[in-house]
């Protein structure tokens, strides 16, 4: 097949202009609604703190908006050189997942550093406390319970 064949361009336009089925829109709304409810439930049972919710709520809202009006999604698909709207959604989903994983890796690194500093500080303070306790005992021994 000749990639320069003008019919290919026409075929691609045909794919992109094809209206999405109602089922697809309903699926998108269900997915968005489920995500919204899940996030709210996790916040309520304190498994997720509110500060981490905007990105997921934004994603749910984006899903609803994208499924109601396909103009933006079509424009994006044309820019990316995609053939179908669904492949564009999958691609954007992957980009989102990579970005969110990287973001959490950075947060975990920062948290790890903080935990290390706290543990070191604990060890140093415990050492001082044991030393002070030892000074106050006649036999000079001091030992705090482990843990």
């Amino acid at each position, binding site marked *: 097949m000749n990639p320069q064949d003008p019919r290919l361009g026409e075929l691609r336009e045909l794919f992109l202009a094809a209206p999405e089925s109602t089922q697809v829109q309903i699926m998108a709304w269900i997915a968005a609604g489920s995500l919204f409810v899940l996030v709210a439930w996790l916040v309520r049972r304190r498994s997720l703190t509110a500060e981490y919710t905007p990105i997921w709520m934004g994603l749910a809202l984006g899903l609803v908006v994208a499924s109601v009006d396909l103009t933006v999604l079509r424009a994006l698909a044309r820019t990316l050189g995609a053939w179908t709207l669904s492949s564009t959604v999958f691609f954007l989903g992957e980009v989102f997942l990579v970005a969110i994983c990287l973001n959490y890796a950075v947060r975990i690194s920062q948290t790890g550093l903080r935990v290390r500093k706290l*543990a070191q500080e*604990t060890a140093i303070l415990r050492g001082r406390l044991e030393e002070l306790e030892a000074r106050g005992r006649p036999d000079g021994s001091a*030992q705090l319970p482990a843990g």
Partner: protein
Amino acid sequence: MAHTDAVTVLLPAFEEAERIVEVLRAVAQAVPGAQLVVVDDGSRDATAEVARRAGARVLRHPFNLGYGAALQTGYKDALARGAMWLVQMDADGQHDAADLEALLRPLREDRCDLVIGSRFVAPSDYEMGALRRTGRRLFELLGRLSGLEVSDPTSGFQAMNRRVLALYGEDFFPADYPDIDVLVMARRRGIRILEVPVSMRASPRRSTLHGGLRVPYYAYKMLLSWWAAVGRRRRP
């Protein structure tokens, strides 16, 4: 500052209850009056109790943080307590306490800020496996590429002054294996580094680096850390 101890000897330890008493005894004889500090990195055996009974000041991590983190706890403590010089050595008896004075001398004479006990500046019968030898050559090369002439960059037998203690207390110091990346960083921050010959025995423990994906991870991590250290802007 609680009180000033001129020399601190730091021994990071993980499950060394069987060997540490002998090491502490040898250190106390070699450097009388030195403050002996054992950082117990979350051992499940009696390392902390045994070391305390042997006269060491013991700092206990609530859980295992890694060799580098254990060293850093000792640096931070020594800095806060006003130690002038610190010597770090392994708690498993690999390093010879008879070399402690040789490491401290250049610091006392203010000829440098950091002294590395090297197995390779003088003829030595220390035997290394092929993997370690290759790693050492690689780190030596990386050091040279960044203007650092060190023959034994993986040596854990080092002595330092307060300037280095302050630097090593910073966040860049790795929690696992501080090697060539840390030395490059020190050099770039103007630390004067010197090597002195020391003798070392083979560690009685099986290397923590052996097995699985640890060796390739270590090589990868070291290359990345070295690159990051070289890429950072020089600071006075």
